């Protein structure tokens, strides 16, 4: 089987999310990578070095600068004439583009796969991860999004794929990019952080969130996450949200502070290796999944912890 993997990138750097997709694709067959962008040659070179990738297709065109799905999907659909499966990371980019490709190909997408059982059978989470479904597709071509935390990352060195230019990109005239607000941060990205310190509604305000959570994260070199309640309350921006419909994370250590542990939040972090919970409510559901729990007022315990690690 010949697979086509959508490379996640910002026109300069390939993102880690790509690597788990390469691993998933390699379980199906030959791995081709696809870079859609503008001025993205360096990304093509990085993708060519990824272990397991045999060919990199680079479509470099102004119309693809922001990977708008209206422009990306027709191009991918054309490339799928010579590929059997299209795999994208289950990121906001992948989730935006893949279903559009699937509909153009008249294929039912398999979202957010956790494992490849065989060439046509996969497992995927449903009901916020409270159930795992095994699904078999009857479509000849496959369109799949891949959960990054469920597959090992392919090595970024060791490959020597050929790089081929892809033509035919065009502006479909259905959408245009206006602007982007991307937070610049020295912190590790949530989906690749080894440690995550995450805050909930109990923090009470954005000032307290900053005052209590940030120093601990700084001390541990951790990424910062949040529950939906904290994001809805405006303590932190939307891209901090961990959960069913936010980011799915699985760090070595996840420290949940003032988070009660709604099933939607647990769906986003319960595959973390070690879960630590600090909450003053001893009946909070978060304690049912935590490896280490501390029943305490976070405003006392967290600064003390920051001082002692």
């Amino acid at each position, binding site marked *: 089987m010949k697979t086509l993997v959508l490379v996640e990138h910002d026109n300069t750097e390939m993102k880690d999310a790509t690597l788990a997709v390469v691993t998933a694709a390699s379980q199906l067959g030959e791995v081709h990578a696809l870079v859609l962008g503008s001025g993205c040659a360096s990304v093509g070179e990085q993708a060519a070095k990824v272990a397991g990738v045999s060919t990199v297709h680079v479509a470099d065109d102004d119309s693809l600068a922001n990977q708008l799905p209206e422009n990306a999907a027709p191009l991918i659909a054309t490339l799928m004439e010579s590929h059997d499966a299209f795999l994208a990371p289950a990121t906001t980019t992948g989730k935006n583009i*893949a279903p559009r490709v699937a509909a153009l190909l008249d294929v039912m997408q398999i*979202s957010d796969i956790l494992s490849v059982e065989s060439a046509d059978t996969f497992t995927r989470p449903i009901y*916020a991860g409270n159930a795992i479904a095994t699904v078999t597709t009857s479509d000849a071509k496959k369109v799949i999004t891949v959960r990054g935390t469920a597959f090992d990352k392919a090595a970024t060195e060791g490959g020597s794929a050929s790089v081929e230019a892809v033509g035919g990109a065009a502006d479909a005239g259905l959408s245009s990019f206006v602007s982007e607000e991307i937070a610049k941060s020295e912190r590790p990205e949530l989906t690749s952080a080894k440690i995550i310190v995450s805050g909930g509604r109990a923090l009470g305000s954005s000032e307290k969130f900053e005052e209590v959570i940030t120093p601990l994260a700084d001390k541990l070199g951790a990424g910062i996450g949040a529950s939906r309640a904290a994001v809805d309350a405006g303590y932190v921006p939307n891209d901090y949200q961990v959960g069913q419909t936010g980011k799915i994370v699985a760090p070595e250590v996840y420290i949940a502070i003032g988070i009660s542990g709604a099933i939607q939040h647990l769906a986003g972090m319960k595959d973390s290796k070690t879960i630590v919970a600090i909450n003053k409510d001893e009946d909070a559901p978060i304690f049912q999944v935590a490896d280490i729990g501390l029943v305490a007022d976070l405003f006392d315990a967290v600064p003390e912890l920051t001082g002692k690690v």
Partner: protein
Amino acid sequence: MKILVPVKRVIDYNVKPRVKSDGTGVDLANVKMSMNPFDEISVEEAIRLKEAGKAEEIVAVSVGPQKAQETLRTALAMGADRAILVMTDEEVEPLGVAKILAKIVEEEAPKLVITGKQAIDDDSNQTGQMLAALLGWGQGTFANTVELDADSIEVKREIDGGLQTVKLPLPAVVTTDLRLNEPRYASLPNIMKAKKKPLDEKTPADYGVDISPRLTTTNVSEPPVRQAGEIVEDVDALVAKLKAVGAI
């Protein structure tokens, strides 16, 4: 301007789903069902656009069992003008739903479709994008804010790194994210009024599209259960534990 709002009847978001012991699915017998939370946000946004004088009519539509009528009545009670139920007891996959919706769009000619970014039962996150593809329209997914004009819409989208704004000529499809708005509760008088609003019943056959499933679910199982660990006494004990597992 007419707005079409597709909604889905799903397990209530407060209910913890239970997997059937025979591995055939999740037990939905005697379980509270509600409108998919993201679709509530879609209905709310359509109503706000109407209240702002930017839309005249809101048509809610659902593909599902007879009981999805209740979900549509909720949309009507919130403020939708009329509803269409495409009745089927079969489970229709996102691709099939998108095909039915595309036919309804042909008939109704809305300038805007607003629907939830994903349903909280199958967590697919596909229908809006697929509908946009089938119609050849632009898509503004995961909307955080929308700015509607007579012939275009600006959608500020929630993306992994922050926010992105795109502009789409109308007609277009928008899928909603959590922060777009906070849906209202239907008042009792409005619930009563909703009972008299028109609700058309159709079947998938009326639209002549192939909605036969492409996926077969062979097993549904519980995820591995995480055991609760240990409650420590104080911060010193927590630090010791963190050191013991090599976290610090």
